[in-house]
């Protein structure tokens, strides 16, 4: 007995969403794909170039350098922000007004727009009127982000840590809150040390939120633009020029539509690939753990 009514008109309900997605994602992306295989000389003058722009972009030494800096930057901030975020989450108060107060304080940097963050730090680090710049100078430290590449890097990393560690901390905090009290009680009964509690209870229970934290922080940091652009403008030289800035210069500054389109696609694929590899590896590891030794 099959009394089900088949009515494919229901698909029509999906149509508005499809149109929206088309306008917001598919059509712009296709435009980029279109540009990436053409040499656009003028409004009505363009010719097909095939994969030429892609090859040029991949062989561009400046872009390769920016790519290297980008990877280095992402790795450094992940290595700092993830452990630091876990640490902060561990020492945050668990209840009462202190918990709310700390949560609000910690969230504040997250609410500040990117370019405002850049401006804040730009002023903060100035040697004449910035508290940090002036303070370091007074301490006799030769600190200048417009001259010294090391200083510029350190400042950008410090700025990003300040801006985004709260996100990791909040994710971990919520993860820690969801561990049932019985685990801590059992650990006390088993006389587990603080380290053992962290290693065998808290860290395993945080795995899922940490995967999200790492993914979000990787994608964010790999696409960072406004903050370093406002703070250092990519300098000194090109020492803090990241991929987004190279791209913006190429696409908007030089109007090189073809090459920058090809570059955008490569950029997009790299982020997609890294995120995918990371995610599947972690998920695979977890599955392995579950079935390990399951004779």
């Amino acid at each position, binding site marked *: 007995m099959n009394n089900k009514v088949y009515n494919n008109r229901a698909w029509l309900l999906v149509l508005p969403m499809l149109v929206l997605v088309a306008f917001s994602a598919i059509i712009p992306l296709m435009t980029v794909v279109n540009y990436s295989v053409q040499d656009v000389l003028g409004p009505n003058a363009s010719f097909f170039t095939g994969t030429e722009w892609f090859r040029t972009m991949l062989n561009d030494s400046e872009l390769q350098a920016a790519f290297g800096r980008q990877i280095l930057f992402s790795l450094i901030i992940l290595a700092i922000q993830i452990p630091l975020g876990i640490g902060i989450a561990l020492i945050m108060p668990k209840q009462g007004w202190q918990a709310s107060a700390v949560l609000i304080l910690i969230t504040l940097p997250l609410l500040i727009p990117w370019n405002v963050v850049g401006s804040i730090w730009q002023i903060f680090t100035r040697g004449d009127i910035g508290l940090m710049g002036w303070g370091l100078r007074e301490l006799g430290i030769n600190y200048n982000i417009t001259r010294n590449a090391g200083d510029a890097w350190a400042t950008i990393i410090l700025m990003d840590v300040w801006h985004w560690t709260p996100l990791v901390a909040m994710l971990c905090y919520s993860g820690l809150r969801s561990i049932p009290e019985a685990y801590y*009680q059992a650990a006390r*009964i088993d006389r587990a040390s603080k380290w053992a509690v962290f290693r*065998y209870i808290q860290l395993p229970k945080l795995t899922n939120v940490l995967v999200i934290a790492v993914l979000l922080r990787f994608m964010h940091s790999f696409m960072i633009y406004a903050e370093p652009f406002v703070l250092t403008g990519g300098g000194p030289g090109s020492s803090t020029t990241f991929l987004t800035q190279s791209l913006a210069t190429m696409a908007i500054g030089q109007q090189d539509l073809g090459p920058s389109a090809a570059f955008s696609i490569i950029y997009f694929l790299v982020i997609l690939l890294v995120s995918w590899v990371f995610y599947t590896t972690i998920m695979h590891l977890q599955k392995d753990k579950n079935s390990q030794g399951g004779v």
Partner: protein
Amino acid sequence: MAEIILKALAHTYSANPKSPEDYAIRQMEHIWHQGGAYALLGPSGCGKSTLLNIISGLLEPSEGDVLFDGQRVNELPPEERNIAQVFQFPVIYDTMTVFDNLAFPLRNINIPGHRITPKVEEVAEILELTPLLKRKAKGLTADEKQKVSMGRGLVRDDVSAILFDEPLTVIDPQLKWKLRRKLKEIHQRFNITMIYVTHDQLEAATFADKIAVMYEGQVVQFGTPQELFETPAHTFVGYFIGSPGMNILDVRHHAGEVIFADTPLPVPQAFIDAVANANSSNIKIGIRPEFVTVHASKREGALPARKRQVQDLGTYSIVTFELGGETFKARLPEGHPEFADDIYLTFDHDQLGLFVDEYRVEVTA
């Protein structure tokens, strides 16, 4: 190994308790002897878990003392009381193997590896976990996990006591029975004091030699399952123990008779005297459904009642009847006759209980 004494113990979660209702545990004295198998039985919210956590040290009592072998341990955390506790929901260390889980409490007190392995293997053998020792604990079933939690309590052979907080809640019924037997075996083998919290009288009775029944933050009776059944010390025990629970009738004395809802009850003279002499208006008489006899026809000294329902439960039947506007129950053996709506009851006089202000009063003939 220890004798655990609770001295003038009381606990409240409120900052400034005013009435006895503010107390989760009302002032009590109690002794758990070394090596006993005890159950702490009571309904949800009666304070049994609170009491357990006070014994293990997860909670510090607001009043009174906890003594282990005469030593006051109030301020000692669980780590220093050398106690094991198994929780309602299995707590396992996900990333470790079953072996590492069982070895964990030993490693934490720096026992050398060559002494850990035999101990873990012994405990795994008892709990039938040997084939699982190399498995990650994460993929185990609920009952395997709970066995691992229990195992962690058993590996330290010098524990003062093992406390169980409704440990079989998540276990399938047929496995429950097996695990309970296992616990009993372990108890006999190691002679460890065990306190088992449950709200299931059957679980309590099969596990424990002595049961402490808790009600509203108090231990209202501490006795063997038989004592709880035959001579409940409190109306709550009468009602809570037994299936179905005791029939409890509100009575008063009038003109040389014990009256329940305007009807004189057929009770012995000693009862009538005891009710007449009681200094309270809260007087109750209890009779277990097992000791109510139902007759189909009128007879001398029998109490008329209205039949409501007869439930045939296989080896016995439960007759629900109405008496003075309230419903009561009688338990009849298999093969009892059919009853019309009007039935007549007699009570087994030796099995009547008298309760004044909810507590049992002995009546001597």
